[in-house]
């Protein structure tokens, strides 16, 4: 059975109203005026139960327009994050509602054979599957001191899923890229109105990596609407913003894409800097955010919890971009680092789950966790500050009370 989008087949939702919705609108104008008066009550009700299809009630609403939803900690306790609990990060107000039957993706630029591919064309490439985590570059940004610019995510702008699709490499090579193809830019169908379209590029080497995919399914289901139906990029281990949703074009270009989502956003200082330093040129002195550093956090207990004194099972996840996790260690109240046990191994792309049983005496405790990846890099004690608050990967610290 085919999907039936609210605005009609193949329609892009551009923030305006389709014919069908206009009927609803005229009928509900009076209702909306009444709502405006009762807005505070309605808003609280909506905050508890967002009426967004495919999204679990209980997702934390960071913003409604653009839709940004964070996963609370409990759904992050399973190795696979369910689709309706997966964090949603959109850049623009509104989102694309596309149809497999009318979807098309062009490939142009530094190619010998420009292409226009439809859904049936995509099915002819070899199908592959990859379990990988996807994370927002700003996950844990709320932990930076001093505060850094942007959405103040806690730990839940990350999830681990089983992705199915085709290799980007196979699709690109079918267009005969030329030697001038140094970067691959993905253009999404985010309704942008007068604003620039959502475009981000990755270097050709990452694009041709056999684990970089164009995916159609998430955990065995067609991509949910908010996760990029029908086709999105899967650039494993790299910033979430590179995993462009609702792809409508791929441009092969000689230099990094010259658009605001590459030049004005998603860049980071290559050397440590003082937060009071304002002398930099963001687009010229900073480099694009790409592969994530090693990170980990507790999934159980949750900071602020009160638990019975005695034996406590501490659990969490650990992951690093394009490499595996070598060890996770835990320190209670500044004491010696003790190794946690990996309970579910991951990979260079899928996250790891770990556990450690500790004995906690009555009173307050601070418990820190740090992971080390296969390349020998360990999480730092403090976040590495940068003006737009990306890549926060300091030790996660729980404050607990045992009574």
């Amino acid at each position: 059975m085919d999907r039936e989008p609210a605005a009609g087949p193949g329609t892009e939702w551009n923030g305006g109203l389709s014919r069908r919705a206009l009927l609803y609108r005229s009928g509900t104008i009076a209702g909306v005026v009444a709502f405006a008066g009762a807005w505070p009550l309605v808003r609280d009700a909506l905050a508890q139960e967002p009426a967004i299809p495919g999204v679990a009630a209980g997702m934390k609403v960071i913003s409604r327009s653009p839709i940004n939803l964070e996963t609370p900690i409990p759904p992050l306790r399973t190795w696979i994050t369910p689709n309706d609990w997966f964090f949603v990060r959109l850049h623009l107000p509104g989102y694309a509602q596309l149809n497999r039957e009318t979807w098309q993706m062009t490939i142009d630029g530094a190619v010998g054979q420009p292409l226009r591919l439809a859904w049936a064309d995509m099915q002819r490439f070899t199908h592959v599957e990859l379990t990988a985590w996807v994370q927002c570059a700003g996950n844990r940004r709320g932990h930076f001191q001093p505060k850094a610019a942007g959405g103040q995510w806690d730990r839940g702008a990350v999830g681990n899923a089983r992705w199915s699709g085709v290799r980007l490499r196979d699709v690109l090579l079918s267009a005969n890229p030329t030697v001038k193809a140094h970067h691959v830019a993905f253009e999404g169908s985010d309704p942008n109105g007068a604003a620039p379209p959502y475009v981000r590029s990755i270097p050709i080497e990452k694009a041709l990596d056999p684990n970089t995919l164009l995916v159609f399914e998430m955990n065995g289901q067609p991509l949910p609407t908010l996760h990029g139906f029908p086709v999105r990029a899967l650039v494993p281990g790299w910033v979430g913003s590179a995993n462009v949703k609702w792809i409508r074009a791929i441009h092969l270009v000689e230099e990094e894409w010259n658009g605001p989502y590459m030049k004005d956003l998603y860049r980071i200082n290559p050397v440590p800097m003082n937060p009071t330093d304002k002398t930099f040129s963001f687009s010229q002195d900073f480099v694009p955010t790409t592969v994530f550093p090693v990170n980990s956090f507790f999934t159980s207990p949750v900071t602020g919890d009160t638990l019975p004194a005695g034996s406590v099972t501490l659990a969490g996840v650990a992951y690093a971009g394009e490499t595996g996790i070598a060890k996770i260690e835990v320190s209670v109240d500044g004491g010696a680092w003790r190794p946690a046990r990996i309970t579910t191994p991951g990979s260079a792309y899928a996250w790891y789950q770990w556990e450690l049983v500790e004995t906690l005496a009555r009173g307050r405790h601070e418990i820190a966790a740090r992971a080390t990846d296969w390349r020998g890099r360990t999480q730092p004690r403090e976040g590495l500050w940068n003006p737009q608050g990306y890549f926060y990967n300091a030790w996660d610290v729980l404050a607990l009370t045992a009574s």
Partner: protein
Amino acid sequence: MVSTDTHERRHTRKCFWSRASQAAFVAFLLLGTATTVLGAGTVPPVGYDGATHTVSLSLTAAQADAYNFNGYAGGALVVKVPTGSTVQVTMRNVAADVSHSVLVAPWDQRTKGSGFTPAFPGAAPADFETGITSHDPPLHFTFSARSAGTYALLCGVPGHALIGMWDELDVVDGLSAPSATTK
């Protein structure tokens, strides 16, 4: 890492666009866009002391959890001030999880993602890129609107102006009093 499955895949697709969901979805969007589409925002108060030619403008960021000032984005709100007046701007943010700010920037900066500069000395708060949340005290800044023209009142947090978090500030010769109107 990647497992290959060359068998053809058949998918059962759930239709989650049931009538009830559609209605709920449209209602959600209407409520979310009502403040910009239907003008259910709240025009900010603009005070004026004619003796000292001092304008005071009070803005609220993130009405209805969206990227706007008082419910207006993309230039839907137009504030006019007399040339030469002293303008005091206060902005509070009602969102807890997304920081916002405001500054007066040249009109053409409203499509940038970052790298904003104030159009007049003092026409920006400190740390406008970091901004404030609802947990922080309001931002204040004061400037002299010394040159007539069209300027952008925009949010300095990266990525926000780019997607429409800006409105219009006109500095007008010979204006007897400031105003705030909507388009």
